[in-house]
């Protein structure tokens, strides 16, 4: 039991990192990794949505299985995620206006973050129980945050570097991400 939980945590955080190993959620990873503080805010907001949506999707999939409507999985899941993001938008606006303004437009973009839908699909496909679902959602989200923070740290430095014109912007960010992914692939098979 504890071993399973432990391996889910390690796999979500490092060996099966959502960005570097599964290559999901690249758009916000490239878009929001220019500054350290917005990277942290985005990472935590995405973590929150991933955990919540995985849990809701976990229960809804049980209902769909009972009703033999599993082919509706994609449509239902994306609607749930869109509704949750909208809910988070309303709650944050009331509860914490400062965080709300600092997240800005990125909040709405969480809906189209494929890390969220991808994790919900993975969790359902693996047939996890509720505890495992929460742990998996949390560790995938924190793995995303970790990748975002690491990337932001490097990119803040590259702003002062001399980069050939065609490589400026996204190309150099992709190459940096590739080198980081190489480092992460070194962890493969660590706790297999």
């Amino acid at each position, binding site marked *: 039991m504890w071993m399973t939980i432990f391996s889910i945590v390690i796999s979500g955080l490092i060996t099966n990192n959502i960005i570097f190993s599964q290559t999901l959620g690249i758009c916000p990873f490239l878009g929001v990794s220019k500054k350290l503080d917005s990277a942290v805010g985005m990472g935590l907001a995405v973590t929150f949505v991933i955990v919540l949506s995985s849990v809701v999707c976990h229960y809804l999939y049980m209902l769909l299985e009972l009703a033999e409507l599993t*082919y509706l999985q*994609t*449509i239902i899941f*994306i609607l749930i995620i869109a509704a949750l993001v909208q809910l988070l938008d309303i709650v944050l606006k009331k509860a914490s206006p400062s965080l709300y303004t600092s997240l800005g437009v990125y909040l709405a973009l969480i809906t*189209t973050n494929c890390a969220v*839908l991808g994790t919900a699909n993975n969790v359902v496909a693996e047939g996890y129980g509720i505890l495992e679902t929460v742990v998996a959602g949390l560790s995938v989200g924190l793995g995303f945050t970790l990748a975002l923070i690491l990337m932001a740290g490097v990119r803040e430095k590259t702003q002062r570097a001399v980069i050939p014109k065609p490589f400026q912007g996204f190309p150099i960010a992709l*190459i940096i*991400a*590739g*080198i980081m992914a190489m480092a992460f692939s070194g962890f493969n098979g660590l706790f297999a």
Partner: protein
Amino acid sequence: MNGKTLRNAALGGILNNPVFVLVLGMCPTIAQSNSIINAFGLGCATAVVLVFSNIAISLLRKVIPDKVRLPAYIVIIATFVTIVQMVISGFLPELYASISSFIPLIVVNCIILGRAESFASKNSVLASAVDGLSMGIGFILSITLLGAIRQGLGAMGLSLFVQPAGGFIVLGFVMALFNCLMGIFKNRHKTLMEA
């Protein structure tokens, strides 16, 4: 409806290439470009969804209220994705086995929602269909090109390039090359770009 809109829509796949210029839909591009077959298969599935969702959204653009347009678009897109998923799992089970986890994720591919929001919701059905087709072909070409480069390098024994790390690096270099070529092209054909 005029010729200029149509021509711009038809050239959009190259001049505004979704992968190399707009930098949309990165996740499937990197994840599924590890072989030519996977890349081409997923590219075609995405293009089909793109064309049909562009047509449907353009037809419904006067019916959908502005406030609920995003959820409405997502439901339309998800419907076409489900249809494509059923067709591929029914007729091409081998392809389905290797790209199945990425087919549902076509829903959240920003190329599709991006074209719906910025083009299909404002233009006629014909122009939207042409735009979808051109963007779809642009996406198929770029993801297949990446798949060919990565599979080729992998076959030479550089197994790194078949892994995600190689996907990031190859995409970075191809994007830089594309930027470079587009810079030269734009200088030569300034009048075409401004038209």
